[in-house]
């Protein structure tokens, strides 16, 4: 089965055609559900998240004309999933996403005083600069683990490396990030 090009799907949204949702679901539905499920670890929640995502896309295109579309859609899915995650996990910490956050906390320790949105933005920019310096494979591992929240075993399968090797690689990447943040004066 072939999928419509992104620009054509966006055109359908602009025409307010409901076929836009069908095409979007066919092309990126699995990725949206996977992104949500990685964070929520709950198939039903992930399904609902996907529906909320499509609604979000419907409400924002137009006026938005995102390129690439996949990042835009997955970003909405991730944000919805994380909001739901925070609502579901007010007291308990037990999902794969907790592990991801634990690893990030270890890498961005108390020296970085994330008190405001502004500082979060500053950190985002630093991470972007850090990602730009990485080899493609390392960048893939970092983004899949800390953005898509893939498990180490899934990353192992995706890259053909053992889980242990993936863990070691991620550990080194976190250390590199930490070092970069230090060098940029963002970590005390």
């Amino acid at each position: 089965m072939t999928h419509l090009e992104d620009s054509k799907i966006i055109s359908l949204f602009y025409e307010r055609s409901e076929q836009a949702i069908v095409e979007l679901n066919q092309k990126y539905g699995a990725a949206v559900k996977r992104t949500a499920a990685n964070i929520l670890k709950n198939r039903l929640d992930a399904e609902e998240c996907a529906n909320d995502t499509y609604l979000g896309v419907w409400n924002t295109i137009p006026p938005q004309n995102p390129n690439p579309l996949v990042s835009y859609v997955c970003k909405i899915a991730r944000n919805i999933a994380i909001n739901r995650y925070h609502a579901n996990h007010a007291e308990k910490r037990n999902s794969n996403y907790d592990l991801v956050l634990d690893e990030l906390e270890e890498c961005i320790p108390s020296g970085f005083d994330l008190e405001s949105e502004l500082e979060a933005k500053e950190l985002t920019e630093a991470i972007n600069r850090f990602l730009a310096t990485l080899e493609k494979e390392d960048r893939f591992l970092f983004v899949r683990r800390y953005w898509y929240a893939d498990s180490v075993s899934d990353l192992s399968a995706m890259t053909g490396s053992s889980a242990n090797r993936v863990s070691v690689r991620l550990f080194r990447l976190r250390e590199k990030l930490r070092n970069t943040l230090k060098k940029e004066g963002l970590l005390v």
Partner: protein
Amino acid sequence: MNRELISKAVGNIDDRFIAEAYRPVPEDASRSPERIVQMKPKRLFTLALAAAVILSLGIAAYAVWSIHTARQQELRSDLKIDENNAESYVEYQVPDTASEGVVLLSAVNDGEEERIYVNVSPVSEEELAGFPGLLHFFCTIDGTEYGGFAAPALPADLSLAGEVGIHTAVLEYAYDRDSSTLTLQCYLMTDMLEKAVEELGTESVPLSIFVAKGEEEPRCFGTIPFSPTEKQLRSFDFNHARYVDPELGKEIEILGLELTPFTAVWKVTYPEAAVFHTPEADWDAYRDYAFLEDEVCVQSQILFSNGTSFSTGGALTCPYEDGAVHLHCGWGSAINIDEVQQIVLGDLVLWEKTE
């Protein structure tokens, strides 16, 4: 620390990085046009081969002859053996009659491991449903305590997502329904193999291939004689080249590189390298050198006579041996080690071919 804001900061990274790391997940992958394009040459090749075999050997012999020979051809192509002159790759004569058990297809010594490709049968599709997860493959050298693990042989550059993705790929690329044959890649450490040869006092070792399902008793597909193959190694001496990272203000000495078509071992040293490569090492003190080690493996470029370049990628292990840190790197398909023209790290020329 505000986990929510950290999550938000990472969540807002540049769209191009998110798009770059996007991979279609299984239910997408099975439908994507890219995948159809990928499958086509393979299907066409199999059909062409089938036609040739039917004409020359008759229909009865086709099923078995084709799967062994077809797999040999696919492996040869996937591992880029011919185009990169990987002489260490050995292909074996395969039977032309139907048989259950193990058929040795090919092997290559990558410097650290012997990668051995075999066809095993019978493996039913129902049984294979337990892979990955419940089903495990392994090999042992009879009469010794040595052995290794095995896994379905999949194309080197295939990107997979999750267990469903792996299972689908195994059925697509490593399994033949008609003959219930599964192609496996077995890994045996070369030093273990050498020890086994020494202990058994024979040139070849009896290699048995097994499948185990959960806690059940493993099932043996059969035993084949296997002789260790020669590795194809090229050593480069960098004459104690010194690389300085200006930002870290630290220097690393790059002694040399041992290159095979599938692996590389970078040899580097620096003050206290021996101390840092012990379990008790102080990570904070080692960190800068760890980055330098990574830079050597990842940033160095091997330039070939055809104008292409190659990075060995990050090291998978880094033991300290014989006065140097040995950074072991590996990859899936062969490179042509005879056609190296230059090896550089940034502006530093580590090695250059002289006429």
